[in-house]
């Protein structure tokens, strides 16, 4: 019987300070076989922990096409575990179990050819894996537009990836909510000032697209309104939700809401599927 509570040790092979309280980690499982057989779907999460500090859910934010070589996490310091995690250095160990949950749907199975990705703050993290993977699969037939709302330049995530994404055809727009940008672009991406919803009025939205969203609950409310104005159907909208999680496998009840478990049935949901569940956001 497989023991779902048994974590695997992974070694940190690279660390980048992404923002004042945010670190990005590239890690590799100590056991080579585990790494070679590791597969995850974009939008899935893992339980990451340290002995004595418990464990918590974190999105695997790397390109799923590289899952057998390494995986990446981006961690914001907010409490006990994350304060310890962001202190870790190259060579240190993390304990990982997963991947868990249902991630973003396959781009090839969506009825709409194109994709609009909208991320706010740390909600940009779970969208990175889908951007990395989709960027490699773009063509004149399949386009990817990314709206990223961020507080200020200091808080900007993954800025060293923008040029590469753009080279691959990703249409990226950044918008700052707390700082008027000095230039028209930031790390090569066009940028402006305001809330992420403002981009819907400033930039032409790609046609025939599904939308993937992640961000704080208030962002959902306003972005959903904009998407409805732009005639996106409920079933073409997907969101990644957040809850407290202990088991990650649909048993402990911490992440439950209505008839669903965010850990097992999500964290990604189709909007049509959850919009009538009370207290879902």
């Amino acid at each position: 019987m497989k023991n779902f509570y048994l974590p695997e040790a992974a070694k940190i092979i690279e660390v980048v300070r992404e923002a004042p309280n945010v670190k990005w980690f590239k890690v590799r499982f100590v056991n080579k076989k585990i790494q070679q057989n590791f597969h995850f779907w974009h939008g899935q999460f893992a339980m990451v922990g340290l002995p004595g500090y418990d464990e918590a859910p974190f999105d695997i934010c790397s390109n799923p096409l590289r899952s057998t070589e390494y995986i990446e996490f981006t961690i914001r310091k907010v409490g006990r575990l994350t304060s310890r995690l962001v202190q870790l250095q190259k060579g240190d160990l993390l304990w990982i179990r997963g991947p868990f949950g249902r991630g973003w749907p396959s781009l090839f199975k969506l009825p709409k050819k194109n994709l609009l990705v909208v991320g706010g703050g740390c909600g940009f993290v779970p969208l990175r894996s889908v951007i990395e993977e989709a960027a490699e699969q773009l063509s004149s037939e399949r386009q990817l537009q990314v709206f990223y709302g961020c507080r200020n330049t200091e808080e900007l995530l993954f800025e060293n990836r923008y040029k590469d994404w753009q080279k691959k055809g990703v249409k990226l727009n950044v918008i700052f909510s707390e700082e008027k940008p000095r230039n028209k672009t930031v790390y090569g991406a066009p940028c402006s000032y305001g809330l992420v919803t403002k981009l819907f009025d400033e930039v032409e939205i790609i046609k025939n697209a599904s939308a993937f969203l992640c961000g704080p609950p208030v962002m959902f409310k306003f972005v959903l309104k904009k998407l409805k104005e732009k005639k996106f159907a409920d079933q073409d909208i997907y969101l990644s939700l957040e809850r407290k999680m202990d088991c990650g496998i649909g048993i402990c009840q911490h992440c439950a809401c209505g008839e669903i478990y965010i850990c097992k049935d999500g964290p990604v949901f189709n909007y049509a599927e959850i919009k009538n569940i009370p207290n879902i956001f």
Partner: protein
Amino acid sequence: MIQKDIDSLLQKIKKEYQVFAPIRKKGASFIEKIENGKTVDYSGAIPFDSWKFLFFPTQEILLNENFKEPKVNYPKICAWGMNVLDLKALGLLDLVFEDDPYYQKRRQNTLAVGLSAGAPSRENFEDFKIFSLNLEENVLEHVPFDIFLEKMKDGKFLIYSGSQKGQRILEKNKIRDYENIQFAGLIQEEGPDKRMLELQQKMKKSFNNKVWDELDKICLACGKCSIVCPTCFCYDISDEVLAKNEVKRLRKWGNCFYPEFTEIAGGFDFTDTVKKKIHFWYEHKFVRIPKEYKVPGCVSCMRCFKVCPVAINIIEVLKKLDKSSPARKK
């Protein structure tokens, strides 16, 4: 079989197992480890607390100091005198923890001995009847047990075996006069309980029902109901640093009424009112469990009502939900 034979079977089992059984104290029944078979309460009364701590301990070690599964000699435990409702609850736990190695290893070393005595537990069936629960002919086919004792009106017992383990013990003790029952799963032949399915639909749409506003005013969110409930199984996982700097990862009983159960970093709590908490509790029993396991998440034992400091009666709550809902569609 007469009481003397049952007592002697218990004595034999006690040689191999730690036996826990209901003991009558101060007008109620409590589950305790017994030293002397004579103190066992055979009245069939539902004990104050539930049996779940024997199968799902209040706290257990998931990972040892090396972050590996600890090697444990799971004790041989006999739960002696579980009524049919409690066996139903055990059946649910068996499903919930089907893939849980800790539960399964512990469970393999337990012996579940059922007991029905008609009269006192009929109080529950008649006063509080909600699901089609009664001692129908085939009820024993739909609950897990190793041995079952049916106490008749004349004080004699009928004996059933429900597993090979049970059968072996009976044979070893030269009990030949028993009937074998084959466990056919928790769900009756006719399929999932219709009342349960109707209630599930009602519960799903009930958040704005005034029942929850009424409960919001009286429930203390003390969580006692969840502690005694045989079907409540939620848990927390946390690390504990023990004396010699040894960290162990533990699983402990959780309680959805307690603060922090659904709180995330930054202080946002998805169940930040009593209304949301009690609704969450009912949703687990009447929406999520029926969806996943096709059985009700409540066995109507009424322990929650008996323990509740403000006497919230789950059956009354369900009746109110039933009445105040608009006429059934379709």
